[in-house]
């Protein structure tokens, strides 16, 4: 039938056209660029209009808190990840993307924590400069014992070691000063004051953990975030209830492995993240008869939580850890 053949001819023509069009617009798979942002020393001063403040975007709210301490009210600060937001499952809202577009400076934790930041910045457009505040600190390899890692080769949870945050303060001070030389003195003042607070905090933590006997200095957590804490303050990070991805379902094998580890190491308590569902940790703890303590790890707490700033967060967490482990 003539008409029938023509029908198939049309289909084929369509198909070929399709192939040609798509081949012409072929895309390369996006490369995962591992850039580390700019160095504060390389930043050029920004021209601000009358009444205009330096627009700074911080990725996590912990970085944001420290940025606020140094920048004071001379900066226009926006924090991308709100209270309780898990960096692994964060999706920027239109307002967030708009803020990235309009920003002068983006402060990121770095060390692989913000996996999609490159993409987000590229998508948002604009002319912001990015500074990774953890860059240059003595970084630990990732995982703390786990085979696979969502973050890359290094462990990004540096803020559990106070000297790391002091390092942050240095870099932020330098960045703000470079971009706004007129206010450099102001930033310097704030930075100095905060550094002193940090040193006091560090000392306080050392005192507190002294109460925990050697044998109990084991941290079994729902996410291996305490690598830096362990190194700085003399603890051992054991296993994780969850595999490294806190939004995934742990397999039966993961749960069994953890129960074995707990039995083997004989710990008084396990610790879970506030940003992650604790149901599974509770179940494991019920089976083994030990205490579950929930801590603030990736995000500050909301108003009235007792962890509204970085300092408060550390005091809260250390207090809880020491209380749980010092007994027995």
């Amino acid at each position, binding site marked *: 039938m003539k008409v029938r053949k023509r*029908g198939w001819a049309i289909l084929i023509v369509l198909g070929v056209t399709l192939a040609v069009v798509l081949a012409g617009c072929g895309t390369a798979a996006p490369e995962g660029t591992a850039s580390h942002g700019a160095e504060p020393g390389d930043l050029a001063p920004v021209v601000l209009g009358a009444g205009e403040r330096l627009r700074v975007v911080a990725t996590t709210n912990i970085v944001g808190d420290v940025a606020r301490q140094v920048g004071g009210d001379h900066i226009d600060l926006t924090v991308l990840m709100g209270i309780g937001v898990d960096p692994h499952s964060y999706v920027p809202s239109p307002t967030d993307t708009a803020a990235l577009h309009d920003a002068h400076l983006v402060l990121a934790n770095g060390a692989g924590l913000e996996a999609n930041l490159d993409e987000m910045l590229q998508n948002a457009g604009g002319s912001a400069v990015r500074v990774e505040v953890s860059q240059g600190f003595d970084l630990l390899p990732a995982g703390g014992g786990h085979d696979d890692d969502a973050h890359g080769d290094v462990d990004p949870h540096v803020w559990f070691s106070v000297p790391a945050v002091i390092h942050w303060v240095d870099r932020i001070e330098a960045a703000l000063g470079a971009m706004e030389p007129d206010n450099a003195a102001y930033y310097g003042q704030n930075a100095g004051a905060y550094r002193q607070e940090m040193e006091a905090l560090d000392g306080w933590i050392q005192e507190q953990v002294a109460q925990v006997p050697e044998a109990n200095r084991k941290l079994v957590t729902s996410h291996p975030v305490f690598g830096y804490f362990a190194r700085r303050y003399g603890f051992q990070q054991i296993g994780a209830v969850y595999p490294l991805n806190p939004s995934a379902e742990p397999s039966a094998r993961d749960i069994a492995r953890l129960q074995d580890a707990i039995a083997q190491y004989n710990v008084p308590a396990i610790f879970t993240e506030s940003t992650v569902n604790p149901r599974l940790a509770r179940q494991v703890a019920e089976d083994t008869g030990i205490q579950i303590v929930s801590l603030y790890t990736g995000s500050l707490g909301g108003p009235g939580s007792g962890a509204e700033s970085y300092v408060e967060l550390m005091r809260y967490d250390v207090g809880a850890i020491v209380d749980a482990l010092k007994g027995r």
Partner: protein
Amino acid sequence: MSPVLNVRNLSVSYNGSRALDGVSLEVDAGQRVAVVGPNGAGKSTLFRAMVGLIPHQLGSIETHGTELGYITQRSAVDWSFPVTVHDVVMMGRVGKMGWLRWQRPIDREVVQRCLQEVGMAAYADRQIGELSGGQQQRVFIARALAQEAGILLMDEPFSGVDASAQETILEILSQLHEQGVTMLVSTHDLNLAVEWSDRLALLNGKLIAYGPPREVVTPERLAEAYGGQALWRGEDYAMVLGDIDCCGEGGHHHG
């Protein structure tokens, strides 16, 4: 004169059962054929197999010098589909228009003419769901005419249509007959079939009889088609039997 339509030994099976078994009939140009039989006899199947909508396992269908146009049962149509009367008739022209082409003036002319022939030209812009049963039937006849088909297969055109609409349709069929269009009509109405047709095909899975209506419609043949008891039920058959009794020996022949 060779027949315009020649069906030889047509057999159709689906789902494991035989719907049509070895049906053969010849139709000459301009003849009016009624296809009659009980529900499930295969009347629709016969027409559908003839246009190639369903495959046949055995036998052949040949047309000479013209094409088949099929007018579907009204129940099979989606009346809420967004098409107007004009659109429906224009669909009949699709075969003539060719791929990647639009309506040409000739197509519009033909559609207009066919609508006039069935008396529906005033309704060209109505959505088909707005029409009455008889009007809908006429639109589909117009579509078959627009196809320029010389043989029309009409599947139960009189079901669900009131008396005056039926009259209108019969008038149109009579016009078409004058123009020499060959028609095959399936119907439940035995009376009507006998009155109207030149040839009557009595069907129940197989072709029980085919020929001049009054020769075909005998009590024995009807019993074979409809089953013994059914014969005596309903007003449909009472009249026919009455006619046969009265006119059995050399009665009138119509058409």
